[in-house]
């Protein structure tokens, strides 16, 4: 493994969907054991940036990019780089809870089984630790064989977090993970995210300035595909250097 300072670094990344230029020359990095918020108004490219990091944009045939994304010092778009390895090391949580239509247990064991864990005891242990880390264990420990889609929205989203943690990735990508939830579930998950910071490098897309302020250590502010500011969250929110950032923070845009 080559030397690297941060798990993920982005150098001069530009992306297109067909002729549409989405991200424009983005350079930033994501510190380890830190929550980095990606903020910005709708459609500015937050999800696109996030999905460039685990190459989920590759699913869109018209996707093109220039620039470099480094994972542990290696170019993830480079020849010979395994996208499957990459995604095993980078977990993802989506905007809408999307548990598989299987039991709670099968949702968690899906990833480990894919990567060759067959031992039943080991799988059981993974189920328990993942659910505990996602603060869901106490609520579902007696219903592990129940269908996951029967859980409440907040529980489903925590199950999705547990599912992402099941393969023990050092990095977690979260795309507006609470925006589809009720306020109480949202608060619970926000607290959970802060707790997870101790063990994971978290990149959190959010539309919500208050949330970024409560949760994140550093922030990237995107506007129309440009990285307008990238610094400590506190500094950006208390003293924005760009008028566009200030307009977003004060609610005049977005």
């Amino acid at each position, binding site marked *: 493994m080559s030397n690297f300072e941060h798990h993920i670094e982005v150098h001069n990344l530009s992306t297109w969907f067909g002729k549409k230029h989405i991200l424009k020359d983005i350079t930033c990095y994501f510190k380890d054991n830190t929550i980095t918020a990606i903020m910005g108004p709708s459609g500015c490219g937050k999800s696109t940036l996030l999905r460039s990091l685990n190459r989920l944009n590759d699913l869109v045939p018209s996707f093109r990019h220039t620039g470099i994304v480094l994972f542990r010092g290696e170019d993830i778009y480079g020849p010979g780089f395994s996208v*499957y390895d990459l995604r*095993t090391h980078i977990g993802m949580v989506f905007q809408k809870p999307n548990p598989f*239509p299987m039991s709670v247990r099968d949702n968690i064991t899906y990833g480990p089984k894919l990567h060759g864990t067959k031992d039943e005891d080991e799988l059981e242990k993974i189920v328990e630790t993942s659910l505990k880390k996602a603060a869901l264990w106490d609520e579902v420990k007696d219903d592990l064989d129940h269908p996951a889609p029967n859980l409440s929205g907040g529980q489903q989203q925590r199950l999705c977090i547990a599912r992402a943690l099941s393969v023990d990735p050092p990095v977690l990508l979260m795309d507006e993970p609470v925006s589809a939830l009720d306020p109480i579930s949202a608060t619970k998950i926000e607290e959970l995210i802060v707790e997870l910071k101790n063990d994971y490098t978290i990149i959190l897309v959010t539309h919500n300035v208050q949330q970024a302020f409560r949760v994140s250590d550093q922030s990237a502010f995107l506007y129309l595909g440009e990285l307008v500011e990238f610094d400590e969250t506190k500094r950006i929110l208390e003293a924005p250097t760009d008028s566009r950032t200030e307009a977003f923070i004060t609610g005049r845009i977005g």
Partner: protein
Amino acid sequence: MTTQSISESPLRKIYGRLGLKDAVKSRRHLSDYLFKIILGMAIIIIVSPFFFVLFQVASIGFEQVFGTGPGQGIEFLFTFPGAGLEGGIRNAFVGTVELILLASAVGIPLSVFGAVYINEYTQPGKLRAIIEFTSDVLAGIPSIVFGAFGFAFLVDYLHIGMGIVAGSLTLAFMMIPTVLRTTQEALRAVPMSLREASLALGATKWSTTWNVTLRSAFPGVITGILLAIGRVMGETAPLIFTAGNSLSVPTEITGPGSWVASMPYTIWAYISDPRQYLQEKAHGTALALMMMVLAIDVIANLISRKVTRRLV
């Protein structure tokens, strides 16, 4: 909740009973009342053919299928026809089961994998549009055309000859458009984000398709298969020129030994015969066939519901 409490409320019951009285009160009530009557009549017209058919078939064929006399009931299904076509319809019963099993074994995997390939591994575009358009046209083509095609292509051109192979392949061709299109619809209904969640865990495309996408689409796929089996089970026309007929069951893969009877063919043959007891046997066969289709329907529904409960 609200609708339930309204429909159960005593007010509503009184309204229902006094419908006619209210109707005289105002034009609004009158048109409401007339509309209800028209809807009711439509329902009766829609469902009555089913009961007429069932009644007609059962009134003549009931004794054959449910009677306890010699050669009736289970014996009717499991005795081969004898001299003068006396006896049972084992040849047709076994023939239909074998034809359907073979047709399904060929038609279902082809169409399910075809649908998976089209939906999951190709981009929307001209090719997909052409395939979908052709399937839709094929699904609407009269079954006699499939029979003619089966004869011209399988029996004649490929020299397969009449028999169980040509017959079941023709039925398989008939199943493909239905299963293909319903599977496509079921796959389309699976949210993109489920596939993404699997891929984001490092799964391969194939593993995602098999373990997540197809699994989620399973109830829909089952429904399509059921529809297709129900449709081809009762078809006579595709078999007339392709399956031959037989008083026994096929013993060979090709040649006259592979000729096979089927229930719809037998119904057609017996009903065109003036002998009274063959009329009864034709109706008995029809009743048994209807019940088989119904049974498949119920079983598939149970499977689908069980899977749905486990999965969703």
